[in-house]
């Protein structure tokens, strides 16, 4: 792990919402780094600023001050067009709600991601990895929540992004399905070597991560590497 180069560097990040009396500082000087290929979990309760942080890393929100550098590129120097290209080339996004396109089938929803990449993964291979091969011609409304989240992960990973951002990917799922999704994310991390940052408020998930950053009230409370990493299948909560 230590020999891996720093991929994401976040330095003194500030972000607030509202103004005057209603001003609320969500990020209050956040600083940390993530290495390439790392599975990093951002852990924290509601309102700790973890989703805001993820959105800023993803280039869909902007910080008030501070810097983010990904693979040597500074996000604040990018205009909207450059940010779109940055997301297109480097990022995959998985949300708590799957946001699939209703009138495209499973395979086509994954192709939506593949289209954005010059070097997409093999879609059929990915469908098998995701356990969706049998369902590839079904529409999203014919799938269970877990299956839909698999499609959403497939759509994000198919373009083989350098960085996969997952915002509470198990937030809308039951225990069993959640574990299946976590196993899938773990499997992807191993198989394709993408850097993964996952936001969650579910404490036990930290067990499967390489790197765990605990947030509270907009600052990093702990930033530690997991010495006793366990497979997702063994997680219990």
């Amino acid at each position, binding site marked *: 792990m230590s020999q891996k180069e720093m991929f994401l560097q976040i330095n003194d990040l500030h972000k607030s919402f509202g103004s005057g009396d209603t001003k609320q500082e969500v990020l209050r000087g956040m600083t940390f780094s993530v290495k390439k290929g790392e599975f990093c979990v951002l852990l924290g309760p509601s309102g700790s600023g973890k989703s805001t942080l993820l959105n800023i890393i993803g280039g*869909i929100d902007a910080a008030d001050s501070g810097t983010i550098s990904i693979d040597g590129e500074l996000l604040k120097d990018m205009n909207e067009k450059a940010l779109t290209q940055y997301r297109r080339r480097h990022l995959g996004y998985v949300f708590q709600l799957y946001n699939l396109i*209703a009138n495209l089938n499973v395979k086509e929803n994954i192709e939506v991601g593949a*289209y954005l990449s010059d070097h997409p993964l093999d879609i059929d291979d990915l469908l098998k990895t995701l356990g969706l091969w049998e369902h590839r011609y079904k529409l999203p409304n014919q799938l269970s929540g877990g299956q839909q989240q698999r499609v959403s992960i497939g759509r994000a990973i198919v373009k083989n992004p350098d960085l996969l951002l997952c915002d509470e990917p198990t937030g809308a799922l039951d225990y069993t399905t959640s574990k299946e999704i976590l196993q899938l994310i773990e499997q992807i991390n191993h198989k394709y070597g993408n850097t993964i940052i996952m936001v969650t408020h579910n404490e036990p998930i930290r067990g499967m991560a390489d790197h765990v950053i605990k947030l509270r009230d907009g600052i990093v409370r702990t930033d530690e590497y997991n010495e006793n990493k366990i497979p997702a299948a063994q997680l219990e909560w």
Partner: protein
Amino acid sequence: MKKAIQTVKNPLRRRILREFTGDWKKYLVIGLFLILMIGFISGVYVANGSMLTAFDESPAKYRTEDGHFVLSDEADRELLDRLEDDENITIYQNYYREEKESWSGELKGREKLSKKQKNDVRIRIYTLREDVDLPCIMSGRLPEKEDEIAIDRMHAENVGLKVGGKLKAGDRNLTITGFVSNADYTTLFENSRDMMFDALTFDVGLMTQEGVDTLSAPVRYNYSYLFTTEGGNGQIERAADDIKEKEKNDDLMENLYQKVILTGNQVDDFVPAYANQAIQFAPEDFSSDEAMAGIILYVLIAVLAFVFAITISNTITRESTVIGTLRASGFSRGELIRHYMAAPLIVTLISALIGNLLGYTYFKNVVVAMYYNSYGLPTYETVMSSEALIKTTIIPIVIMFVINLIVIAHKMRYTPLQFLRRDLKKHKRSKAMRLPSFFFLSRFRLRVLIQNISGYFILFVGICFVMIMLAMAVGMPDSLGYYQKKAPEMVIAPYETLVKTDHDIYGEVIKTKEKSAEQFSASSLVYTTGGRDENLEVYGIIKDSEYLDSEKLNDLDKDEIIVSKAMAGKFKLKTGDTIRLSAKYEDKKYTFKIAGINSYEAGSAVFMPVDRFRDTFDTEDDSFSGWFSREKISDVDEKYILNEITAKDITKMVDQLDHSMGDYMHYFQYLCIGLSAILMFLLTKLIIERNENPISMTKILGYTNREISSIYVTATTIAVIISEFIAAWIGYEVMIQLWKKIMSRMNGWFDFYLSRQGVIKMLLFVFIGYLIVMLLDFRRIKKIPMDQALKVVD
């Protein structure tokens, strides 16, 4: 190493086809409507283009005259030779006789004529013309024997005459050998002064010389001329442009009047081709039809584009989180704008192509049939026009593109995060509007109304468009009916008898014993405005006239006049304005100040006291032009009578408009019901789609379908009713302005009139359209599933 080749095609494209199949009813309705609309307009362009080409070729093909003049007596050859030499023209004898036309038996089409009209059909019979104004044979053949006649095709069809059939010209029984189109009567204007053409009671016929000689009506000494090249080698030379043509004709007219007077003859009429409505009206009408068709098409496309844009805007709101995800994944704003714009553009393109195909094949014939129903047109060949293709394909696509681009790009202005959070409202209402303490369901309806105000605004715009069309469809027959009924009140007097001369052959002033007769003087002047010449009558009225409100007339200052209501309305003249009039055939100008407007509605006219008239026009103290009377003047020798104007002359224009447009206006009314139903179908669908979740939720709460419909459909009904009333008023006002434009092209004027019943009809028609949609809305609401509101995913 990264692969440089992108292997996956944009899968969003597949959504477009599924969008079409998924919402096929909507696209089918819009598509069919566009196809029919574009098809018809394309048909108008192709038909007009082909007809105008036929008209352009007409002068060479049929040797259409450059003008004609009518003399009181036959011209001597020396006069004609001098004119030909001086003016580089060739003059042709084109004599005619006017007889009463009648038929025996009841024929198809004859029921369109009233009894009065049947007894007053005139036919102008020319000797077969071989050098000028050659006939185009539409069916049958030209006459060969003295009891044979070829007549105008359009008149024949209007009254139901057939080739091989019989007609009576005066007391002569004649066999109809053929139908023709005459180059100098493509539109059947009896006189160039007429307000409107009259293909019902006016006909033009051709007979052999021997045949014409057997007629009893007097000969009218009509001479047609063609300009020739200088040097007099007889080669026909058309004027290079309108100005040159006018100059040439002006020179000829001046010379003609001077020379004719010297021979003791008199010019009764001089009509250059450019001022001859019978020649010019049809091509001018085609051009204006084209412009009008274009405007209707573009407005309609704009409305549909707007409906599309709003529908897409609604879809974007619904798919907000998906768009946020796609944007977050790297899809650019441009890619998504293009994606959402694809459907309307594809529909427009396909509809335009199919529409054009139908335009060139089916609709062209429909339009041509319409024109043949109004005009005595020659034969034509279909001319494929790239202009038509551009106007009915490229421009609609551009309109569709621009409107959708503006609306969709505006909707796509939000950040990915705003899309993900469904945060798409610019101004969030901080507090709910407080409502009066109505019954709960009433407040609920009011909330629905307020919440969907933007959707209802679009519905209002759609209804406005339908109402403008309905105002035309209902208002035109209404206006015609109104004037048909009101005509007797519109004339100055029941009889207006014009005399050729005020002294008889013995030098005595012509008199009548008719008690109600009142002398007046009249002259024709021209009012030139906006590049157009309007012929008008100037009346000199006696003091204390029985027929005109003379109080004002008696008080007029030296340069003051009273203008007719029709003229004031047409040219937006008001008291205090100064107008400049000119003599038609002389270089004389008159400037008058308007001191008042009287109630005369039948045409453009100005009035002044008779003494002033005599001073102004330098006529004798006892001179006059005719009489106003309540009864027919029957004791004056017919040879002194120039014309007799009664209410039927006023209704001539109305009758013809009613005949040409009446039926179409009824079809147009049904089309408007269909259009209102389509627009409301699309727009109410939008409103219900926007409210699917709340409707679903109310179902979960236990509301019945009937209760839910009463909330959502009643809100829409209220919006429709309010929109209807406002839109009816807007439609009426817009139509008044459009009507002014239509009328400004005609000699004469009458205001747009919409009866109370007409307004009710308009409101009712749109409401009928809405009732159909309402039933569909009930079904839509019924079909919304209860789990709709519980879905967290798309």
